[in-house]
């Protein structure tokens, strides 16, 4: 029973990280129908930024909490700037082109950013310090859940609640939804659509950077390629839940995390991907639009 509980919590932790990244895929897809292949790299850049800031801040003698907070903040800001810039130089000029052109541009951006980090940093794995201290109160439950897991669960759920609030109740959120549903009509009521698209990239990138910091600190090492692996998983989660749907991305990510956790726990970690992608195929056979995806007839 305890083992089962441990697997559940482990799966939810994994899933909530996938969710942070999946949200960026799904929001961008929802608003401009683009699979942003460079999104995984934004996550990777977040992890690298956090690593650099952690080293520097630690050297400067900042205390643990200050290091975590400042490094995460730096990662979020840096990645957001990258996400914003990628959209402006690689996608915005192609807004009126056929749908394949931005897709190719996205793949190009992904390759470019990977190689940029490879050259600027190194191809080796770099150790990433564990930023999250061991909490006292967690000691008795250590066989079920760890301190990093708790922090990840709390941070991600807070981020998702804030996002939900933003999308549902703010003016910007309404503009985002309207733009996703009918871009030209959104222009006709006075929405500055380019700005809404930029905001979407910035939010998605910020969430991915947060995911990058949390998982790097949990796993303990990073390299230029981690964005690709995490990106594929998060993209799978977004498709599983129904790409374009925000609750769908979160649900898909949690389902994926739990599946992997159980596959690892009861079978073998070698099979976690088999189960994850087997599940994807199975769900898409019965629900081609994903769990919460909707098949919309879109007017252009």
């Amino acid at each position, binding site marked *: 029973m305890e083992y089962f509980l441990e697997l559940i919590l482990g799966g939810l932790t994994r899933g909530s990280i996938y969710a942070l990244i999946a949200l960026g895929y799904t929001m961008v897809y929802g608003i401009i129908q683009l699979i942003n292949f460079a999104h995984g790299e934004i996550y990777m850049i977040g992890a690298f930024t956090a690593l650099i800031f952690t080293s520097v801040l630690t050297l400067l003698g900042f205390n643990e909490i200050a290091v975590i907070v400042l490094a995460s903040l730096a990662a979020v800001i840096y990645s957001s700037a990258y996400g914003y810039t990628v959209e402006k130089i690689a996608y915005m000029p192609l807004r009126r082109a056929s749908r394949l052109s931005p897709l190719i541009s996205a793949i190009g951006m992904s390759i470019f950013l990977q190689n940029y980090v490879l050259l600027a940093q190194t191809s080796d794995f770099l150790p990433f310090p564990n930023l999250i201290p061991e909490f006292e109160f967690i000691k008795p439950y250590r066989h079920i859940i760890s301190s990093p897991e708790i922090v990840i669960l709390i941070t991600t759920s807070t981020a998702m609640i804030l996002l939900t609030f933003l999308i549902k109740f703010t003016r910007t959120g*309404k503009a985002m939804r309207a733009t996703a549903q009918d871009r030209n009509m959104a222009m*006709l*009521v006075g929405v500055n659509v380019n700005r809404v698209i930029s905001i979407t990239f910035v939010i998605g990138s910020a969430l991915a950077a947060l995911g990058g910091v949390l998982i790097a600190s949990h796993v303990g090492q990073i390299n230029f390629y981690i964005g690709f692996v995490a990106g594929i998983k998060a993209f799978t989660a977004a498709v599983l839940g129904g790409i374009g749907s925000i609750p769908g991305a979160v649900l898909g990510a949690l389902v994926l995390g739990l599946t992997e956790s159980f596959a690892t726990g009861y079978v073998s970690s070698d099979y976690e991907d088999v189960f994850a992608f087997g599940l994807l195929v199975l769900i898409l056979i019965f629900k081609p639009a994903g769990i919460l995806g909707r098949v919309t007839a879109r007017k252009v």
Partner: protein
Amino acid sequence: MLRLKNVNSFYGNIQVLKNLNIEISRGEIITLIGANGAGKTTTLMTISGLVPSRSGEITFMGKTIHNMRPDRIVSLGISQVPEGRRIFPYLTVLENLDMGAFLRTDRKNIKKDMEYIFDLFPILSQRRNQFGGTLSGGERQMLAISRAIMARPVLLLLDEPSLGLAPLIVRQIFEIIKKINIENQTTVFLVEQNANLALKAAHRGYVMENGRITLSDSAENLLSNENVRKAYLGL
């Protein structure tokens, strides 16, 4: 107030609007009639800035508005009820109305205008928390017009508001168009298939053929014009 001077608009390489000249003064109801594919919708989209004009000039209240971003054009007071209504399907009726007032900041008056809308169309009040996509065709048209009114436009562009509606609702909608024209001094530019109805509501009219204006006159004269009667009134 609105003036199109030698406007030429294209989709890719295909020219749709050819040397278009249109002038509308404050407080008028002007109608644009023409056969399918003549370029009426394109005219409205060019005014709203969604279809770029390649040459010519569009001015609105003394400002040059071609080459302006669509949201800027809206902020000057030009609202459009586009062809096919284009209600946001997954926003509620209330949220759709809110989107109409997107650029306004006077919350108090927005509330008041919403009450005004619900007075005009009580059915929308009953449906206020329903998704736009679940409304009937008539309800959607009412919502589309209401959404545009929520912007408190100076100039209202209407693209075939009568399309697919029951005669009773059509009459109601035309009553409202006349009402806001008189009460709020809203200038109306009305594109219509139903030329008879449109010319009866309008002060002046333009006839468009293949992207060109071929005739422009007072509504009365157009109603009694032989060619117009034959081509657009089916008489």
